[in-house]
């Protein structure tokens, strides 16, 4: 159980919610609403005393134990070394064994096995996103926070990642940050909607996507066309 008790840090104001074992979460919110800041606080990259894991303060958990519990996957891949390869990167995500077959499996599942020996710095932004997801699957923390995992992907890859998340065997509990409302809707996770650092909505997916509620959040910038939520570019305001 992951419990956030009245978290106030940087832009965030009085955030409180609880995520039980087996529950997944989608975090939505406009640019600059504090989604990434919240994610960084959850995994202690932004130290705080308000995050509790099974009743234990996150700040008091030893680093190597904390790493098994929570992992954060940023939107962009940040690698300093220019010769560190895709395979090297994946190996760094493996805790128990450095089994190369597991790495191969994941690379095949994401259709990036041809990049195995490429330096990470040479990847395109879409390939980097896939590598980040592959790394997170190998890391397999109890809670995995994915920060806009599909933002840089083409349509087919978006579907692939959606299926992978739906499958449920790749991750334990997932917290996903996204701007893709259709993805959020199809995943059906509980929704936390942030507005200027505060929780404006926290509840079931169905309630969030209720037409009257949705209009309150996004105006008519979003349209439901045959069960798919699409951006309405003709909208004026």
């Amino acid at each position, binding site marked *: 159980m992951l419990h956030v008790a009245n978290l106030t840090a940087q832009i965030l104001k009085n955030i409180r919610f609880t995520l039980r074992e087996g529950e997944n979460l989608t975090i939505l919110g406009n640019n600059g609403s504090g989604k990434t800041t919240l994610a960084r606080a959850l995994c202690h990259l932004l130290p705080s005393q308000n995050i509790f894991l099974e009743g234990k303060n996150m700040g008091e958990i030893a680093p190597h134990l904390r790493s098994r519990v929570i992992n954060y996957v940023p939107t962009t891949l940040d*690698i300093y070394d220019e010769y560190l390869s895709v395979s090297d*990167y994946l190996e760094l995500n493996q805790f128990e064994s450095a089994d190369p077959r597991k790495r191969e499996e994941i690379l095949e599942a994401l259709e990036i096995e041809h990049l195995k020996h490429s330096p990470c710095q040479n990847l395109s932004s879409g390939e980097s996103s896939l590598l980040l997801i592959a790394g997170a699957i190998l890391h397999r923390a109890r809670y995995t926070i994915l920060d806009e995992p599909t933002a840089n992907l083409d349509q087919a890859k978006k579907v692939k990642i959606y299926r992978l998340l739906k499958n449920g065997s790749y991750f334990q509990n997932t917290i996903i940050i996204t701007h893709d409302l259709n993805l959020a809707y199809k995943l059906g996770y509980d929704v936390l909607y942030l507005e200027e650092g505060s929780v404006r909505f926290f509840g079931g997916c169905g309630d969030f996507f209720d037409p009257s509620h949705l209009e309150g959040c996004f105006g008519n910038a979003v349209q439901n066309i045959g069960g798919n939520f699409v951006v309405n570019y003709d909208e004026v305001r």
Partner: protein
Amino acid sequence: MKYVSLILSLAVLIIAPFLGEIAVNIQEIFNPASASSMLFWEIRFPRVIIAFCSGAILALAGLVFQSVFRNPLTTPFTLGVASGATLGSALAIVFFGGILFWQYLLSFFGALLTVAVLFLLSRSLKSAQTGSLLLVGIALSFFYSAALMVLYYLSDFEQSYSIVRFTMGSLNIIGFETVYPILIASLLFLASIHLQRKPLRLLLTSLDFAFLKGVHVSRLIMSLLLLTSLAVAVCVSVVGPIGFVGLIVPHIIKLLYRRSSDTLILPTFFYGGIFLVACDLVARNLGAASDIPIGVVTSFLGGPFFIYLIVQRNKGK
């Protein structure tokens, strides 16, 4: 390419003690009564060892600093550690008549003081802000340079000359007393960095990534900095500040091997040593009357080559 450079390096290492102003006669080196034997064992041989160990320490120190600060231009020299040691030595030259014991002690003290200042400041800065630490290091270097200018102003002609010679770096060493500390320091340094190669590999991605994989990032960085600075302090107090080795050798090794930095600890150490032995060979054999200061040779060879490297790197992108 790798084998060629390895064979070449070993050749340099073997012939280095024999060449110089006076050539050593190979047949006589095991005859204790001969001048060649004395020259070989008391002067040339310790000199080559010291050159090798200093070059190795400086190169590996550069590799560690570049990895920790995630900046290809950082070395202990840019962080002010070497400048602190240099100032210590200059103080000893002016106020203790250049007695070697004081020179070593104050060099050591200068380097440690710099590390302590960096260490304390880093705790008040945010844990992962190595950029700020680097700026502090640069500010400290300027401060030490200014203090060195004050010392020049206060000292007489002879002392000024000694300071200048020291800041140019020198491998003029007789006997084995100074060999042991630098030999031990270099081996301990190599071993301690080699033991930390796994967390170092995590640092090569990003600090956040290392943190999320359970590394105590600020503690790791501080231990690496402290180890490196101690090794560099030993090196500077023995041979003076020899620039450029720490900057260019890691880059050359990376271009040669094309592997991630954590796998280059041993090659960087080895070729750093070879580089300085080779530079010293040039320094000893070019000047007719006396040796060219080693710092001059490393900078003359290193400077243009480094600019070439930077141009090549940017061409590729």
